[in-house]
């Protein structure tokens, strides 16, 4: 299984929103995506309404087609529950893929976590 790290940071303190940063590092591929993505789905199950998510992609080196499908699905679930999703610090190759797929039309992408937080807090 390829190495991938997903950690969830609660940043609700100081804001009036249920906000989390999901740090993803390594490579999301066929060998690990189905298993690792469940951590995010568990978070969605526990917070079905008004969840505000920032995906920190600074250390994400590679994402496969399935992980793009999951990201789109997560976006749908969160927005249906009244929440919002943003991306932060995506590497050029990842940003390139997301742009071509059309996800950047849906999900705003920022150069820093602070900018992403500010967008979600407004």
């Amino acid at each position, binding site marked *: 299984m390829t190495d991938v790290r997903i950690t969830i940071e609660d940043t609700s303190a100081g804001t009036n929103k249920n906000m989390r940063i999901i740090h993803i590092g390594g490579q999301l591929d066929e060998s690990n995506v189905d298993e690792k993505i469940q951590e995010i789905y568990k978070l969605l199950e526990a917070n079905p309404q008004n969840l505000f998510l920032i995906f920190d992609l600074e250390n994400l080196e*590679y*994402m*496969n*087609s*399935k992980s*793009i*499908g999951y990201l*789109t*699905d997560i*976006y*749908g679930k969160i*927005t249906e529950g009244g929440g919002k999703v943003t991306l932060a610090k995506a590497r050029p*190759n990842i940003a*390139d*893929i997301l*742009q*071509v*797929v*059309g*996800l950047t*039309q*849906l999900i705003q992408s920022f150069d820093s976590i602070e900018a992403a937080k500010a967008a979600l807090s407004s």
Partner: protein
Amino acid sequence: MFDNPLVLLGISLVCAGIPAFIWLYILFSKNSKSKFVIALVFGLGCLTAPLLLGIQFLSAKYFQFDLGNFIDTSVLTNNTKYIVLGFVLAGAMEEIIKHYAVSSVDKKTILIKTIGDAIRYSLAAALGFSFAENIVYLYQNWAQVSINEFIGMYIYRSVFTTCGHLIYSGIFGYYYGIGKFSIDITKQHQLAGESSKITAFIAKFFSIPLSHAYQQQMVLKGLFIAITIHSFLNFLLQFNVVFPVIISVVLGYVYLQYLLSRKAGHLILSTDISSKRKTSMAKNDEDVVIELLGLWFQEKKYVDVIHICERLLERDPDNNVVKLFKAQASDRMDDKDTYKTILNTILIREKDLSKNDQNIITKYIENKDQIIKSQTTARTTPSITETPEIKKEEDNKKTFTLQL
């Protein structure tokens, strides 16, 4: 005057030429293909008929096998098995020789650049063959039938026999075209989860690449279908069963027009390597997107597939697999709309499914668009002046629409 063979030949030539040129006009007048190349293929098609007669003559002389006599004897002795065999052999010879006119030119020049080209040039060759065959037929029967019988035979051969040749060759041409672009098509099929067990078996059995096996399979399939329809219609005609022949020819022609109208058939898949434009996307990243196209194509998210293909083609304009995905998604949507129209005519349903129900990104973008619209309306209603923020949102919205 009509006893003069040259005059008879001239009259037969004119009579056979009229329908041939009407068909050429119907099929190629609105087409941008070079008239010279079409004329060349038509001319080669004309030569295939005497070539076939030559082969039959040599076969009768050196192998004591005269196909015409074989069929006539089988009919006289009412031996159905041999009649079928005779027609299959005659059909096979005609189809192979007509196809040779196209494939030989295609191998020397890059004649066929799209699947549609393969069909069109096959039609031109078939018209040439039919033209030459009609000359021989009219010349031989001129003195043997009454004028009324001759007119009936002339109209029948001009319309239905010629149309029959167009159908057999057009279908064979279609499969030849698919086979020619098998490398890209096989890859696209694999990504879309449409791999064939027969192709895999052929590849394994003959130890050849999958795309090569697919090409062989398609050419043989095209030949098989063309021979089957050809023999079947000839068999029916032998016993004067005309009505099913007319129905079959009309249906075949409609099917041929359907094949020609497919968007995937218009794609230019044969590109000169030296003029091929480079992709501006890293190969690994592009592979991820193409893999996603395959997944979403399987899930019938055709609108999303088309949008992704459009963006990807801006980055990699000569990627045939992406072009195929876009054209096929578009074709599937057209088919879906056709079926929907038919179903809606038969069944009046309370709730009709939108084409976007299965699409993800497109659906969400439309939702987002509606939210922005409702927010803008709510914010602009009480206010008389437009704030810069709202103006910016409006501009963003316009960008979305344009990007779609």
